[in-house]
């Protein structure tokens, strides 16, 4: 007798998601093997935006390199400037003023807000809610306006320099920031009203794309990805730099490590970043905004690694100096790139729609992934 077959066999399909696809956020290509709607295998293919920034670094002077770092994570260029400058400064052994430190904290946190706002908007858009995208860009516009007042540029700033910052903070900038911060918390409430408790949003994010604590650590995930998986780890607290120890803020963590946890971690982080900026603006000391340095920078022979908590995670610059005007080697630890690898652990048995949500929740910027 023939056993009745209960299993329905279907053919597996290979589809290319990207490099031109609305929700791969740039030129990421995902090779998907699917069975119906279910994703069997994901193969992230990176490198379409490779510009060889690390190699270019060997042929440029240190000062010329700062604008190149703007092009890494172009949504939070201040953090990139900062990480690179900190690495070189530890070779130069230069003392920076407290005022410069405060300004750096302000711009880095504003950058975090700008980056998280873009993330929130595009993540919501990936889930089909198109309205938060425009709300978020409205707020981001205020931040970019403030940056424009500060340094003339809106996205690629070249603002954080060796020994301090390029220009001093003007009262106009402080004013713009304060006015922005006045309404910002209410605006975040608005986003939360649209998303946080929306049953459709919850059903799309709760329990989807779970990254366990162990996996998160073994994939070396960092930033909101790591904190979403219930690991309390933030460089601003755990390896403090600048004047962060003087600031009062909390590190939000998730509980299970699903998409929703990463979402709420970033939402709380936005509120905390606004808090930090307020404190820094209040406590902004007088003093020099830039230390005197020789025109031709020749850091001492040696190597330095510095890391900052960028919006996407731990951004590290490893710089080897041979005592000349350009570095011997620069290695960038890009958080987006390393976080992206964890997609393999998160998409087991996911649907295509889940994959979009998961990819959105990683928050990648291809400029940084491909460098």
């Amino acid at each position: 007798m023939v056993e009745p077959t209960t299993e329905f066999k279907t053919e597996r399909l290979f589809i290319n998601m990207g490099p031109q696809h609305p929700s791969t956020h740039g030129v990421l290509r995902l090779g998907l093997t699917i069975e119906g709607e279910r994703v069997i295998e994901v193969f992230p293919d990176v490198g379409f935006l490779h510009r060889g920034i690390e190699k270019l670094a060997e042929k440029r002077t240190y000062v010329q390199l700062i604008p190149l770092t703007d092009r890494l994570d172009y949504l939070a260029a201040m953090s990139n400037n900062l990480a690179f400058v900190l690495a070189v400064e530890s070779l130069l052994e230069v003392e920076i003023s407290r005022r410069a430190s405060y300004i750096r904290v302000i711009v880095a946190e504003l950058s975090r807000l700008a980056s998280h706002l873009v993330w929130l908007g595009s993540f919501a858009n990936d889930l089909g809610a198109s309205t938060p995208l425009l709300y978020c860009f409205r707020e981001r516009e205020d931040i970019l306006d403030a940056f424009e007042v500060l340094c003339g540029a809106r996205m690629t700033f070249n603002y954080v320099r060796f020994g301090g910052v390029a220009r001093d903070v003007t009262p106009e900038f402080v004013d713009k920031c304060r006015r922005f911060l006045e309404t910002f918390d209410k605006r975040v409430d608005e986003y939360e009203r649209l998303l946080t408790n929306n049953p459709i949003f919850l059903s799309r994010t709760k329990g989807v794309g779970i990254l366990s604590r162990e996996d998160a650590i073994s994939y070396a995930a960092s930033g909101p990805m790591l904190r979403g998986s219930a690991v309390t780890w933030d460089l601003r607290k755990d390896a403090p730099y600048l004047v962060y120890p003087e600031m009062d803020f909390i590190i939000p963590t998730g509980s299970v490590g699903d998409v929703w946890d990463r979402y709420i971690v970033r939402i709380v982080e936005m509120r905390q970043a606004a808090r930090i900026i307020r404190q820094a603006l209040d406590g902004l000391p007088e003093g020099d905004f830039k230390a005197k340095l020789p025109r031709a920078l020749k850091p001492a022979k040696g190597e330095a690694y510095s890391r900052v908590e960028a919006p996407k995670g731990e951004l590290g610059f490893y710089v080897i100096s041979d005592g000349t005007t350009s570095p011997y080697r620069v290695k960038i630890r890009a958080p987006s790139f390393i976080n992206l690898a964890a997609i393999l652990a998160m998409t087991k048995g996911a649907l295509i729609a889940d994959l979009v949500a998961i990819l959105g929740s990683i928050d990648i910027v291809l400029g940084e992934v491909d460098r």
Partner: protein
Amino acid sequence: MSIELLRLIWIFLPQLLPWPLYELGVMAVAFLGVIFFMILMVLFMVWFERKIIGHIQVRIGPLHTGGWHGWAQSIADTIKLFLKEDIIPRGVDKPVYILAPLVVFVSTVVVYVVIPFSEKLVARDINMGILFVFAIGSVATIGIFMAGWGSNNKYSLLGAMRVAAQIVSYEVPLLLSVLGVLMLAQTLSLKGIVEAQKHVWYVLLQPLGFAIYVIAGIGEVNRLPFDIPEAESELVAGFHTEYSGLRFAFFFLAEYANMFVMSAMATVLFLGGWHGPILPGFFWFVGKAFFFMFFMVWLRGTFPRLRVDQMMSFCWKVLLPLAFLNLLVTGLVMSVLK
């Protein structure tokens, strides 16, 4: 004198003309009228939606084309679509690919023939109009599936499979919710249903039925939060990824025309059709339908998209039992009151 003559000609015209000519002429006039009305409606609807969604999203929406609030924007878009090069990709299944937009378009237009815009303004009042609407309307599903299959594109195929699954399942609660109204009105004619609501709209007698109709109706026309077949962030453009120019325009037209059909049916079945004080019936009808349209746009501005499996389980596990419950209660109350 001459007016009298014209009146005589008008009365005896059917006898004067050879047999099929008069009938065909009437049909042609009705059909042209329907098409003209539909295209006008869709053009307005597209502009209306863009303005509404723009204001919801703190934007302004179209503003320049035509002067006043960009009223000519959708006309300009249509002309652009009509003038575009007609591209048929090399790998497609040609007959299926070409036929698909027509199937979708025609099956949508035909439905307009039975919609009673006012007491007099209905192209054809069929005595089983409601069945006609839903039967013809579901033919469009086949057209959409043809588009997805014929495009020879994996994203289109996925979109087409989703359409088939979605529309087939959402049709069940949709029709069940309509059944309650039919039981109350004791007729299948759309005109008859509206006339039965002269004193009280069925939305008051059938609130649950109305809720089910609205949800299933939005699922039926693939609007957010049920726009799964063409989920942009997942499937690029779903079944019409490979279509451009005129053929795309047909899909677009059909989609919006279909939205209007859903709104019009909501008006006929639950909101009292053309009934309303002072204004002529036609304005009431279109006004009510556009309120429903506004509701759909509002939803689009607020909600994220459901996932395909969640949407299916919502349909079968929530909507369908509720629709049966609605039917049961309606029947019980009616037999008790008898």
